[in-house]
Protein backbone atom coordinates (compact mmCIF):
# COMPACT_ATOMS: atom_id res chain seq x y z
CA UNK A 1 0.00 0.00 0.00
CA UNK A 2 1.29 3.42 -0.86
CA UNK A 3 0.63 6.18 1.61
CA UNK A 4 1.66 9.79 1.47
CA UNK A 5 1.67 12.04 4.47
CA UNK A 6 1.44 15.81 4.49
CA UNK A 7 0.96 18.46 7.15
CA UNK A 8 -1.22 21.55 7.19
CA UNK A 9 -0.36 24.44 9.49
CA UNK A 10 -3.04 26.55 11.10
CA UNK A 11 -3.90 28.01 14.47
CA UNK A 12 -5.26 26.50 17.64
CA UNK A 13 -8.95 26.87 18.37
CA UNK A 14 -9.13 24.18 21.05
CA UNK A 15 -6.07 22.27 22.25
CA UNK A 16 -5.48 18.55 22.54
CA UNK A 17 -4.65 15.81 20.10
CA UNK A 18 -6.97 13.40 18.33
CA UNK A 19 -6.92 11.37 15.20
CA UNK A 20 -9.31 9.46 13.06
CA UNK A 21 -10.83 9.08 9.67
CA UNK A 22 -11.69 12.30 7.89
CA UNK A 23 -15.26 13.13 6.92
CA UNK A 24 -15.04 15.98 4.43
CA UNK A 25 -17.82 18.23 3.21
CA UNK A 26 -17.82 21.40 1.13
CA UNK A 27 -21.17 22.39 2.65
CA UNK A 28 -21.37 24.42 5.85
CA UNK A 29 -23.02 22.61 8.74
CA UNK A 30 -26.08 23.67 10.67
CA UNK A 31 -26.16 22.59 14.33
CA UNK A 32 -29.63 22.66 15.85
CA UNK A 33 -32.01 21.47 13.13
CA UNK A 34 -29.12 20.38 10.92
CA UNK A 35 -27.81 17.46 12.94
CA UNK A 36 -29.34 14.84 15.17
CA UNK A 37 -27.22 14.94 18.34
CA UNK A 38 -28.72 11.67 19.56
CA UNK A 39 -27.55 9.79 16.48
CA UNK A 40 -24.58 11.86 15.34
CA UNK A 41 -25.99 12.31 11.86
CA UNK A 42 -26.51 15.19 9.45
CA UNK A 43 -30.25 15.67 8.88
CA UNK A 44 -30.36 18.87 6.78
CA UNK A 45 -32.49 17.97 3.77
CA UNK A 46 -30.17 18.95 0.93
CA UNK A 47 -26.79 18.57 2.67
CA UNK A 48 -23.98 16.77 0.89
CA UNK A 49 -23.63 14.52 3.95
CA UNK A 50 -27.36 14.03 4.53
CA UNK A 51 -27.88 10.88 6.55
CA UNK A 52 -24.18 10.34 7.26
CA UNK A 53 -22.67 9.96 10.70
CA UNK A 54 -19.87 12.17 12.02
CA UNK A 55 -19.42 10.19 15.21
CA UNK A 56 -15.75 9.58 15.93
CA UNK A 57 -14.72 11.22 12.66
CA UNK A 58 -12.44 14.17 12.09
CA UNK A 59 -14.94 16.58 10.61
CA UNK A 60 -13.41 18.70 7.82
CA UNK A 61 -15.79 21.43 6.69
CA UNK A 62 -16.01 25.07 5.62
CA UNK A 63 -17.74 26.25 8.80
CA UNK A 64 -20.98 26.60 10.73
CA UNK A 65 -24.28 28.07 9.69
CA UNK A 66 -27.83 28.35 10.86
CA UNK A 67 -29.31 28.37 14.33
CA UNK A 68 -27.62 29.73 17.42
CA UNK A 69 -28.25 26.28 18.87
CA UNK A 70 -25.04 25.13 17.13
CA UNK A 71 -23.02 24.78 20.31
CA UNK A 72 -25.94 23.28 22.21
CA UNK A 73 -26.54 20.60 19.58
CA UNK A 74 -22.89 19.57 19.39
CA UNK A 75 -22.55 19.85 23.17
CA UNK A 76 -25.38 17.35 23.42
CA UNK A 77 -23.62 15.14 20.85
CA UNK A 78 -20.66 15.10 23.22
CA UNK A 79 -22.89 13.85 26.04
CA UNK A 80 -24.44 11.13 23.87
CA UNK A 81 -21.03 10.02 22.63
CA UNK A 82 -21.91 11.03 19.09
CA UNK A 83 -19.51 13.97 18.66
CA UNK A 84 -16.79 14.13 16.05
CA UNK A 85 -13.25 13.47 17.31
CA UNK A 86 -11.81 16.74 16.02
CA UNK A 87 -12.74 19.74 13.92
CA UNK A 88 -10.83 21.11 10.94
CA UNK A 89 -12.47 24.12 9.34
CA UNK A 90 -11.92 27.33 7.39
CA UNK A 91 -14.34 29.96 8.54
CA UNK A 92 -14.17 31.15 12.15
CA UNK A 93 -17.52 32.12 13.66
CA UNK A 94 -18.84 32.42 17.18
CA UNK A 95 -20.99 29.32 16.62
CA UNK A 96 -18.09 27.11 15.75
CA UNK A 97 -15.74 28.56 18.39
CA UNK A 98 -18.23 27.99 21.20
CA UNK A 99 -19.25 24.63 19.77
CA UNK A 100 -15.65 23.43 19.63
CA UNK A 101 -15.01 24.64 23.18
CA UNK A 102 -17.95 22.81 24.72
CA UNK A 103 -17.42 19.70 22.57
CA UNK A 104 -13.94 19.61 24.10
CA UNK A 105 -12.37 18.26 20.96
CA UNK A 106 -9.19 19.53 19.29
CA UNK A 107 -9.98 22.14 16.66
CA UNK A 108 -7.79 23.99 14.19
CA UNK A 109 -8.46 26.72 11.63
CA UNK A 110 -6.62 29.40 9.63
CA UNK A 111 -4.58 27.04 7.45
CA UNK A 112 -1.78 27.70 5.02
CA UNK A 113 -3.68 25.57 2.50
CA UNK A 114 -7.35 24.82 2.06
CA UNK A 115 -8.00 21.59 3.97
CA UNK A 116 -11.08 20.98 1.81
CA UNK A 117 -8.94 20.59 -1.28
CA UNK A 118 -6.20 18.56 0.41
CA UNK A 119 -8.12 16.16 2.65
CA UNK A 120 -10.53 13.58 1.32
CA UNK A 121 -13.13 11.53 3.12
CA UNK A 122 -11.44 8.37 4.32
CA UNK A 123 -8.00 9.92 4.84
CA UNK A 124 -6.50 9.23 8.25
CA UNK A 125 -5.97 12.58 9.96
CA UNK A 126 -4.16 13.59 13.14
CA UNK A 127 -5.18 16.93 14.63
CA UNK A 128 -2.85 18.62 17.11
CA UNK A 129 -4.83 21.53 18.50
CA UNK A 130 -2.00 22.93 20.58
CA UNK A 131 0.46 23.07 17.70
CA UNK A 132 -2.22 23.99 15.19
CA UNK A 133 -1.24 21.21 12.83
CA UNK A 134 -3.18 18.65 10.86
CA UNK A 135 -1.26 15.64 9.59
CA UNK A 136 -2.92 13.88 6.70
CA UNK A 137 -2.06 10.34 5.87
CA UNK A 138 -3.57 9.95 2.43
CA UNK A 139 -5.87 7.03 2.06
CA UNK A 140 -4.58 4.22 -0.09
CA UNK A 141 -7.77 4.50 -2.06
CA UNK A 142 -7.52 6.24 -5.41
CA UNK A 143 -8.70 9.87 -5.31
CA UNK A 144 -12.36 10.25 -6.10
CA UNK A 145 -13.15 6.73 -4.95
CA UNK A 146 -15.52 7.41 -2.11
CA UNK A 147 -14.91 4.96 0.70
CA UNK A 148 -17.80 3.09 2.17
CA UNK A 149 -18.81 4.42 5.54
CA UNK A 150 -17.90 1.46 7.68
CA UNK A 151 -17.11 2.00 11.31
CA UNK A 152 -14.13 -0.01 12.36
CA UNK A 153 -12.67 0.04 8.87
CA UNK A 154 -9.72 2.15 9.94
CA UNK A 155 -6.19 1.94 8.67
CA UNK A 156 -3.98 0.53 11.40
CA UNK A 157 -0.92 2.66 11.07
CA UNK A 158 1.86 4.23 13.07
CA UNK A 159 -0.08 7.41 13.81
CA UNK A 160 -2.48 5.55 16.05
CA UNK A 161 0.12 5.44 18.81
CA UNK A 162 -0.97 8.96 19.70
CA UNK A 163 -4.38 7.90 20.97
CA UNK A 164 -3.08 8.15 24.53
CA UNK A 165 -3.33 11.91 24.07
CA UNK A 166 -6.77 11.69 22.65
CA UNK A 167 -9.03 14.15 24.37
CA UNK A 168 -12.07 12.00 24.02
CA UNK A 169 -13.82 13.03 27.23
CA UNK A 170 -17.09 11.52 26.24
CA UNK A 171 -18.75 8.95 28.32
CA UNK A 172 -21.22 6.65 26.71
CA UNK A 173 -24.24 6.64 28.92
CA UNK A 174 -26.36 3.56 28.65
CA UNK A 175 -30.02 3.74 27.84
CA UNK A 176 -30.23 7.00 25.97
CA UNK A 177 -33.46 8.73 25.98
CA UNK A 178 -35.75 9.42 23.18
CA UNK A 179 -35.05 11.13 20.02
CA UNK A 180 -35.83 14.52 21.36
CA UNK A 181 -33.39 17.28 22.03
Amino acid at each position, binding site marked *: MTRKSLTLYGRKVVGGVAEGEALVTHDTISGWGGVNPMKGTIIETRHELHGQSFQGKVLVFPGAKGS*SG*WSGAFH*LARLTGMAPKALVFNEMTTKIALGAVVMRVPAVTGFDRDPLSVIQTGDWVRVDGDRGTVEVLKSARPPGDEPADQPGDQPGDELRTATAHDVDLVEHPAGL*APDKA
Partner: protein
Amino acid sequence: MKLTDAERAMLDGREGKAKQKAMELLVRYAEALGAERFTIATNVAGVPGTYTPFLFNYYGATRENAYDLIYSLFDLDSDEVVEVPQVSVHSCHLQGGVDPEGWEILGAKPEALQASRDSERAAGSKGIEILKTCAPYLAGNEPARGEHCAWMESSAIVYCNSVLGARTNTEGRESTSAAMLTGRIPDWGLHREANRFASHRIHVEVEVESLMDWGMLGYFTGARVGERIPVLTGRYSRPDVIRHKHFGAAAASSGGVELYHLVGVTPEAATLEAALGPSPSAEVIAYGKAEQRRTYEDLNSRASDPNVDYVMIGCPHAALEQIEEVCRLLDGKRISSNCNLWVFTSRAVKAVADSRGLTQTIRSAGGAVLTDTCSAIGQALPPGTRVAALDSAKQTHYLPAIMGIQAWFGSTRDCIAAALTGRWNGVPP
Protein backbone atom coordinates in the same frame (compact mmCIF):
# COMPACT_ATOMS: atom_id res chain seq x y z
CA MET B 1 -6.17 38.03 26.66
CA LYS B 2 -6.25 41.40 28.32
CA LEU B 3 -8.52 41.27 31.35
CA THR B 4 -9.69 44.22 33.43
CA ASP B 5 -9.35 44.11 37.20
CA ALA B 6 -13.03 43.29 37.52
CA GLU B 7 -12.74 40.43 35.04
CA ARG B 8 -9.60 39.13 36.73
CA ALA B 9 -11.44 39.17 40.07
CA MET B 10 -14.24 37.06 38.62
CA LEU B 11 -11.80 34.64 37.00
CA ASP B 12 -9.84 34.31 40.26
CA GLY B 13 -13.00 33.39 42.14
CA ARG B 14 -13.18 36.55 44.24
CA GLU B 15 -16.76 37.10 43.03
CA GLY B 16 -17.85 33.58 43.80
CA LYS B 17 -17.59 30.19 42.25
CA ALA B 18 -20.34 30.61 39.62
CA LYS B 19 -18.82 33.77 38.15
CA GLN B 20 -15.44 32.06 38.14
CA LYS B 21 -16.79 29.12 36.14
CA ALA B 22 -18.61 31.51 33.82
CA MET B 23 -15.40 33.51 33.23
CA GLU B 24 -13.41 30.34 32.66
CA LEU B 25 -15.80 29.32 29.91
CA LEU B 26 -15.81 32.81 28.40
CA VAL B 27 -12.00 32.90 28.38
CA ARG B 28 -11.83 29.52 26.62
CA TYR B 29 -14.39 30.80 24.13
CA ALA B 30 -12.65 34.13 23.57
CA GLU B 31 -9.32 32.39 23.05
CA ALA B 32 -10.89 30.00 20.53
CA LEU B 33 -12.15 33.03 18.64
CA GLY B 34 -8.85 34.84 18.91
CA ALA B 35 -10.47 37.76 20.78
CA GLU B 36 -8.14 39.95 22.81
CA ARG B 37 -10.61 41.38 25.29
CA PHE B 38 -14.18 41.32 26.49
CA THR B 39 -16.88 43.88 25.91
CA ILE B 40 -19.50 44.74 28.51
CA ALA B 41 -22.81 43.22 27.49
CA THR B 42 -25.84 44.93 29.02
CA ASN B 43 -28.62 42.86 27.45
CA VAL B 44 -28.50 39.08 27.34
CA ALA B 45 -31.05 36.74 25.76
CA GLY B 46 -30.69 32.98 26.07
CA VAL B 47 -32.23 29.77 27.31
CA PRO B 48 -30.48 29.43 30.67
CA GLY B 49 -30.81 26.25 32.67
CA THR B 50 -33.59 24.65 30.65
CA TYR B 51 -33.60 20.92 30.35
CA THR B 52 -35.11 18.03 28.49
CA PRO B 53 -35.73 14.66 30.13
CA PHE B 54 -32.49 13.58 28.48
CA LEU B 55 -30.37 16.24 30.24
CA PHE B 56 -32.23 15.74 33.51
CA ASN B 57 -31.54 12.01 33.49
CA TYR B 58 -28.05 12.32 32.07
CA TYR B 59 -26.93 14.46 35.00
CA GLY B 60 -28.98 12.49 37.52
CA ALA B 61 -30.85 15.62 38.56
CA THR B 62 -33.64 15.94 41.08
CA ARG B 63 -36.44 18.51 40.97
CA GLU B 64 -34.72 20.41 43.76
CA ASN B 65 -31.22 20.63 42.30
CA ALA B 66 -31.94 20.50 38.56
CA TYR B 67 -31.57 24.18 37.73
CA ASP B 68 -28.20 24.83 39.36
CA LEU B 69 -26.91 21.41 38.34
CA ILE B 70 -27.72 21.81 34.67
CA TYR B 71 -26.75 25.50 34.62
CA SER B 72 -23.35 24.48 36.02
CA LEU B 73 -22.58 21.33 34.10
CA PHE B 74 -24.19 22.10 30.76
CA ASP B 75 -24.56 25.88 30.47
CA LEU B 76 -21.22 26.80 32.05
CA ASP B 77 -19.58 23.54 30.90
CA SER B 78 -18.17 23.32 34.42
CA ASP B 79 -16.97 20.05 35.88
CA GLU B 80 -18.37 20.98 39.27
CA VAL B 81 -21.77 22.13 40.41
CA VAL B 82 -21.97 25.72 41.58
CA GLU B 83 -24.74 27.74 43.15
CA VAL B 84 -26.13 30.04 40.47
CA PRO B 85 -26.48 33.61 41.80
CA GLN B 86 -28.69 36.48 40.62
CA VAL B 87 -27.90 37.54 37.08
CA SER B 88 -25.80 40.69 36.93
CA VAL B 89 -27.27 42.22 33.77
CA HIS B 90 -30.64 42.60 32.04
CA SER B 91 -31.37 39.04 30.98
CA CYS B 92 -34.30 37.33 29.34
CA HIS B 93 -35.35 33.81 28.54
CA LEU B 94 -36.14 33.14 24.88
CA GLN B 95 -38.43 30.39 23.58
CA GLY B 96 -39.08 27.18 25.43
CA GLY B 97 -40.58 23.81 24.64
CA VAL B 98 -43.97 23.81 26.36
CA ASP B 99 -46.90 26.21 26.40
CA PRO B 100 -48.06 26.23 30.06
CA GLU B 101 -51.68 26.73 28.95
CA GLY B 102 -51.85 24.86 25.65
CA TRP B 103 -49.54 22.02 26.61
CA GLU B 104 -52.18 19.36 26.12
CA ILE B 105 -52.88 20.57 22.58
CA LEU B 106 -49.15 20.30 21.91
CA GLY B 107 -49.20 16.73 23.19
CA ALA B 108 -46.73 17.53 25.97
CA LYS B 109 -46.46 15.18 28.91
CA PRO B 110 -47.33 16.45 32.40
CA GLU B 111 -43.70 15.77 33.42
CA ALA B 112 -42.46 18.08 30.66
CA LEU B 113 -44.83 20.79 31.87
CA GLN B 114 -43.63 20.27 35.43
CA ALA B 115 -39.98 20.52 34.37
CA SER B 116 -40.71 23.67 32.39
CA ARG B 117 -42.52 25.23 35.38
CA ASP B 118 -39.72 24.28 37.77
CA SER B 119 -37.06 25.70 35.52
CA GLU B 120 -39.07 28.85 34.89
CA ARG B 121 -39.53 29.43 38.62
CA ALA B 122 -35.82 28.97 39.22
CA ALA B 123 -34.88 31.28 36.34
CA GLY B 124 -37.31 33.91 37.61
CA SER B 125 -35.79 33.74 41.08
CA LYS B 126 -32.38 34.56 39.57
CA GLY B 127 -33.81 37.73 38.01
CA ILE B 128 -34.25 36.41 34.48
CA GLU B 129 -37.23 37.81 32.56
CA ILE B 130 -39.42 34.98 31.34
CA LEU B 131 -40.39 36.23 27.89
CA LYS B 132 -40.51 32.74 26.35
CA THR B 133 -40.34 33.92 22.78
CA CYS B 134 -37.99 33.88 19.81
CA ALA B 135 -39.08 37.46 19.09
CA PRO B 136 -38.23 39.29 22.35
CA TYR B 137 -38.30 42.60 20.48
CA LEU B 138 -42.09 42.12 20.15
CA ALA B 139 -42.47 41.22 23.81
CA GLY B 140 -40.75 43.97 25.77
CA ASN B 141 -37.01 43.57 25.18
CA GLU B 142 -35.82 46.00 22.58
CA PRO B 143 -32.15 46.98 22.93
CA ALA B 144 -31.06 50.51 22.08
CA ARG B 145 -28.95 51.41 19.07
CA GLY B 146 -25.30 50.69 19.73
CA GLU B 147 -26.01 48.64 22.86
CA HIS B 148 -23.73 45.63 23.23
CA CYS B 149 -25.81 42.49 23.64
CA ALA B 150 -25.27 38.77 23.90
CA TRP B 151 -28.20 37.14 22.18
CA MET B 152 -29.14 33.70 20.99
CA GLU B 153 -31.78 32.86 18.40
CA SER B 154 -30.62 33.63 14.87
CA SER B 155 -33.80 35.48 13.87
CA ALA B 156 -33.60 37.71 16.95
CA ILE B 157 -29.87 38.32 16.48
CA VAL B 158 -30.27 39.51 12.90
CA TYR B 159 -33.15 41.76 13.98
CA CYS B 160 -31.14 43.14 16.90
CA ASN B 161 -28.19 44.05 14.69
CA SER B 162 -29.96 45.10 11.51
CA VAL B 163 -33.21 46.74 12.51
CA LEU B 164 -32.30 48.05 15.98
CA GLY B 165 -28.62 48.79 15.31
CA ALA B 166 -27.61 47.13 18.58
CA ARG B 167 -24.59 44.81 18.53
CA THR B 168 -24.48 41.10 19.07
CA ASN B 169 -22.77 38.10 17.61
CA THR B 170 -24.58 34.80 17.37
CA GLU B 171 -24.19 33.58 20.89
CA GLY B 172 -25.03 30.11 22.09
CA ARG B 173 -26.68 28.75 25.18
CA GLU B 174 -23.40 28.39 27.07
CA SER B 175 -22.06 31.87 26.26
CA THR B 176 -25.34 33.63 27.05
CA SER B 177 -25.72 31.82 30.36
CA ALA B 178 -22.14 32.81 31.25
CA ALA B 179 -22.78 36.40 30.12
CA MET B 180 -25.86 36.66 32.34
CA LEU B 181 -23.63 36.10 35.38
CA THR B 182 -20.66 38.21 34.29
CA GLY B 183 -21.93 40.88 31.90
CA ARG B 184 -19.08 40.00 29.55
CA ILE B 185 -18.83 38.63 26.04
CA PRO B 186 -15.83 38.40 23.70
CA ASP B 187 -15.11 41.68 21.92
CA TRP B 188 -15.09 40.14 18.48
CA GLY B 189 -17.01 40.24 15.23
CA LEU B 190 -20.06 42.46 15.17
CA HIS B 191 -19.19 44.24 18.43
CA ARG B 192 -16.57 46.10 16.42
CA GLU B 193 -17.58 48.89 14.07
CA ALA B 194 -15.09 47.85 11.39
CA ASN B 195 -16.76 44.46 11.02
CA ARG B 196 -20.25 45.82 10.40
CA PHE B 197 -19.90 46.93 6.80
CA ALA B 198 -21.46 45.08 3.89
CA SER B 199 -19.39 42.71 1.80
CA HIS B 200 -22.09 41.76 -0.69
CA ARG B 201 -24.70 43.79 -2.49
CA ILE B 202 -28.01 42.21 -3.45
CA HIS B 203 -29.60 44.25 -6.20
CA VAL B 204 -33.34 43.66 -6.18
CA GLU B 205 -34.76 43.81 -9.70
CA VAL B 206 -38.21 42.45 -8.97
CA GLU B 207 -40.93 43.96 -6.84
CA VAL B 208 -40.61 42.87 -3.23
CA GLU B 209 -43.60 43.88 -1.21
CA SER B 210 -45.54 41.10 0.52
CA LEU B 211 -44.46 39.07 3.54
CA MET B 212 -43.91 36.10 1.23
CA ASP B 213 -41.77 38.27 -1.08
CA TRP B 214 -39.59 39.27 1.86
CA GLY B 215 -39.28 35.69 3.09
CA MET B 216 -38.12 34.53 -0.33
CA LEU B 217 -35.69 37.42 -0.68
CA GLY B 218 -34.24 36.54 2.72
CA TYR B 219 -33.93 32.88 1.82
CA PHE B 220 -32.17 33.77 -1.43
CA THR B 221 -29.90 36.26 0.34
CA GLY B 222 -28.76 33.81 3.02
CA ALA B 223 -28.05 31.11 0.48
CA ARG B 224 -25.94 33.49 -1.57
CA VAL B 225 -24.00 35.36 1.12
CA GLY B 226 -23.71 32.68 3.80
CA GLU B 227 -22.21 34.30 6.90
CA ARG B 228 -21.42 37.59 5.19
CA ILE B 229 -23.10 40.97 5.45
CA PRO B 230 -25.38 41.97 2.57
CA VAL B 231 -26.63 45.41 1.63
CA LEU B 232 -29.79 45.50 -0.44
CA THR B 233 -30.46 48.01 -3.17
CA GLY B 234 -33.13 48.32 -5.84
CA ARG B 235 -36.87 47.69 -5.96
CA TYR B 236 -38.23 47.02 -2.56
CA SER B 237 -40.76 48.96 -0.60
CA ARG B 238 -39.93 49.94 2.97
CA PRO B 239 -40.54 46.83 5.09
CA ASP B 240 -42.50 46.89 8.33
CA VAL B 241 -41.43 45.00 11.46
CA ILE B 242 -43.03 41.74 10.29
CA ARG B 243 -41.31 41.82 6.91
CA HIS B 244 -37.97 42.52 8.61
CA LYS B 245 -38.68 39.61 10.96
CA HIS B 246 -39.35 37.16 8.11
CA PHE B 247 -36.56 38.44 5.87
CA GLY B 248 -33.94 38.18 8.61
CA ALA B 249 -35.15 34.81 9.89
CA ALA B 250 -34.98 33.36 6.38
CA ALA B 251 -31.51 34.79 5.69
CA ALA B 252 -30.27 33.38 8.98
CA SER B 253 -31.59 29.91 8.07
CA SER B 254 -30.48 29.36 4.49
CA GLY B 255 -27.24 31.09 5.44
CA GLY B 256 -25.84 32.61 8.59
CA VAL B 257 -26.72 36.26 8.12
CA GLU B 258 -26.39 38.16 11.40
CA LEU B 259 -26.59 41.69 10.00
CA TYR B 260 -28.03 43.19 6.84
CA HIS B 261 -28.36 46.71 5.56
CA LEU B 262 -31.24 48.20 3.59
CA VAL B 263 -30.22 51.50 2.06
CA GLY B 264 -32.29 54.34 3.44
CA VAL B 265 -34.05 51.99 5.88
CA THR B 266 -31.80 50.35 8.48
CA PRO B 267 -29.87 52.49 10.98
CA GLU B 268 -26.35 51.87 9.71
CA ALA B 269 -27.21 52.32 6.03
CA ALA B 270 -28.28 55.92 5.53
CA THR B 271 -26.57 55.63 2.14
CA LEU B 272 -25.02 52.80 0.14
CA GLU B 273 -21.61 54.29 0.90
CA ALA B 274 -22.30 54.23 4.65
CA ALA B 275 -23.28 50.55 4.45
CA LEU B 276 -20.23 49.59 2.42
CA GLY B 277 -17.74 51.52 4.55
CA PRO B 278 -14.11 52.12 3.68
CA SER B 279 -13.68 49.29 1.17
CA PRO B 280 -16.66 49.56 -1.16
CA SER B 281 -15.89 46.57 -3.33
CA ALA B 282 -18.95 44.49 -2.60
CA GLU B 283 -19.79 41.69 -4.97
CA VAL B 284 -23.10 42.47 -6.71
CA ILE B 285 -25.73 39.71 -6.87
CA ALA B 286 -28.90 40.24 -8.88
CA TYR B 287 -32.29 39.14 -7.57
CA GLY B 288 -34.73 39.21 -10.44
CA LYS B 289 -37.85 37.34 -11.51
CA ALA B 290 -35.91 34.16 -12.30
CA GLU B 291 -34.13 34.11 -8.92
CA GLN B 292 -37.41 34.77 -7.13
CA ARG B 293 -39.10 31.95 -9.01
CA ARG B 294 -36.25 29.55 -8.28
CA THR B 295 -36.35 30.44 -4.59
CA TYR B 296 -40.09 29.74 -4.51
CA GLU B 297 -39.56 26.39 -6.22
CA ASP B 298 -36.70 25.57 -3.89
CA LEU B 299 -38.84 26.29 -0.84
CA ASN B 300 -41.64 24.18 -2.31
CA SER B 301 -39.45 21.22 -3.19
CA ARG B 302 -40.14 19.66 0.21
CA ALA B 303 -43.72 18.70 -0.61
CA SER B 304 -45.61 16.79 -3.27
CA ASP B 305 -48.92 15.89 -1.62
CA PRO B 306 -51.54 18.66 -1.96
CA ASN B 307 -53.54 17.34 0.98
CA VAL B 308 -52.55 19.62 3.84
CA ASP B 309 -53.26 18.48 7.37
CA TYR B 310 -51.44 21.18 9.34
CA VAL B 311 -51.01 24.93 9.02
CA MET B 312 -48.55 26.71 11.27
CA ILE B 313 -48.31 30.48 11.56
CA GLY B 314 -45.83 32.29 13.81
CA CYS B 315 -42.22 31.65 12.84
CA PRO B 316 -40.72 33.80 14.23
CA HIS B 317 -43.48 34.28 16.80
CA ALA B 318 -46.43 36.13 15.35
CA ALA B 319 -46.91 39.84 15.90
CA LEU B 320 -50.37 41.07 16.81
CA GLU B 321 -50.98 42.23 13.22
CA GLN B 322 -50.34 38.70 11.96
CA ILE B 323 -52.88 37.24 14.36
CA GLU B 324 -55.35 39.89 13.20
CA GLU B 325 -54.66 38.89 9.61
CA VAL B 326 -55.29 35.22 10.36
CA CYS B 327 -58.66 36.21 11.87
CA ARG B 328 -59.49 38.33 8.82
CA LEU B 329 -58.59 35.51 6.43
CA LEU B 330 -60.61 32.96 8.41
CA ASP B 331 -63.56 35.25 7.82
CA GLY B 332 -65.85 33.47 10.25
CA LYS B 333 -65.39 30.07 8.57
CA ARG B 334 -64.33 26.81 10.20
CA ILE B 335 -61.14 25.11 9.19
CA SER B 336 -61.29 21.76 7.43
CA SER B 337 -61.92 18.77 9.68
CA ASN B 338 -58.83 17.19 8.10
CA CYS B 339 -56.61 20.08 9.07
CA ASN B 340 -55.19 21.77 12.16
CA LEU B 341 -54.21 25.41 12.54
CA TRP B 342 -51.73 26.49 15.19
CA VAL B 343 -50.62 30.08 15.61
CA PHE B 344 -47.52 30.56 17.78
CA THR B 345 -46.71 33.80 19.56
CA SER B 346 -45.32 35.18 22.80
CA ARG B 347 -47.23 35.37 26.05
CA ALA B 348 -47.11 39.16 25.84
CA VAL B 349 -48.67 39.30 22.39
CA LYS B 350 -51.19 36.59 23.24
CA ALA B 351 -52.35 38.58 26.24
CA VAL B 352 -53.31 41.41 23.89
CA ALA B 353 -54.81 38.97 21.37
CA ASP B 354 -56.88 37.47 24.21
CA SER B 355 -58.19 40.85 25.26
CA ARG B 356 -59.11 41.70 21.69
CA GLY B 357 -61.01 38.45 21.25
CA LEU B 358 -58.62 37.26 18.52
CA THR B 359 -57.63 34.08 20.33
CA GLN B 360 -61.31 33.19 20.68
CA THR B 361 -61.93 33.89 16.98
CA ILE B 362 -59.20 31.44 16.01
CA ARG B 363 -60.43 28.90 18.53
CA SER B 364 -63.99 29.18 17.20
CA ALA B 365 -62.65 28.44 13.72
CA GLY B 366 -61.08 25.25 15.06
CA GLY B 367 -57.53 26.54 15.47
CA ALA B 368 -55.37 27.41 18.48
CA VAL B 369 -53.12 30.25 19.60
CA LEU B 370 -50.14 28.83 21.46
CA THR B 371 -47.16 30.39 23.20
CA ASP B 372 -43.58 29.76 24.26
CA THR B 373 -42.57 27.38 21.48
CA CYS B 374 -43.26 26.26 17.92
CA SER B 375 -43.48 22.99 16.05
CA ALA B 376 -39.74 22.93 15.31
CA ILE B 377 -38.50 23.99 18.75
CA GLY B 378 -41.05 21.96 20.69
CA GLN B 379 -40.98 19.11 18.17
CA ALA B 380 -44.74 19.14 18.41
CA LEU B 381 -47.17 18.45 15.59
CA PRO B 382 -50.85 17.59 15.58
CA PRO B 383 -51.13 13.78 15.66
CA GLY B 384 -50.81 12.21 12.23
CA THR B 385 -49.40 15.28 10.50
CA ARG B 386 -47.92 14.45 7.12
CA VAL B 387 -48.08 17.68 5.15
CA ALA B 388 -47.77 21.19 6.54
CA ALA B 389 -48.37 24.58 4.98
CA LEU B 390 -46.19 27.42 6.23
CA ASP B 391 -45.82 31.14 5.60
CA SER B 392 -42.29 31.21 6.99
CA ALA B 393 -39.25 30.34 4.89
CA LYS B 394 -37.37 29.63 8.11
CA GLN B 395 -39.91 27.09 9.36
CA THR B 396 -40.04 25.55 5.87
CA HIS B 397 -36.27 25.16 6.03
CA TYR B 398 -36.28 23.41 9.40
CA LEU B 399 -39.55 21.59 9.99
CA PRO B 400 -39.34 18.90 7.27
CA ALA B 401 -35.76 18.10 8.31
CA ILE B 402 -36.57 17.91 12.01
CA MET B 403 -39.95 16.19 11.89
CA GLY B 404 -39.74 14.22 8.64
CA ILE B 405 -42.87 15.72 7.11
CA GLN B 406 -43.63 17.53 3.86
CA ALA B 407 -44.06 21.31 3.89
CA TRP B 408 -45.46 23.82 1.43
CA PHE B 409 -44.40 27.45 1.52
CA GLY B 410 -46.61 30.36 0.54
CA SER B 411 -48.40 33.49 1.64
CA THR B 412 -50.40 33.70 4.84
CA ARG B 413 -53.48 33.82 2.59
CA ASP B 414 -52.44 30.57 0.85
CA CYS B 415 -51.87 28.94 4.22
CA ILE B 416 -55.21 29.95 5.72
CA ALA B 417 -56.93 28.85 2.49
CA ALA B 418 -55.22 25.47 2.95
CA ALA B 419 -56.49 25.32 6.52
CA LEU B 420 -60.04 26.00 5.36
CA THR B 421 -60.02 23.52 2.47
CA GLY B 422 -57.39 20.98 3.47
CA ARG B 423 -55.78 21.46 0.06
CA TRP B 424 -52.66 23.34 -1.02
CA ASN B 425 -53.35 25.79 -3.77
CA GLY B 426 -50.43 28.16 -3.40
CA VAL B 427 -50.04 31.04 -5.79
CA PRO B 428 -46.46 31.40 -7.09
CA PRO B 429 -44.97 34.89 -7.21
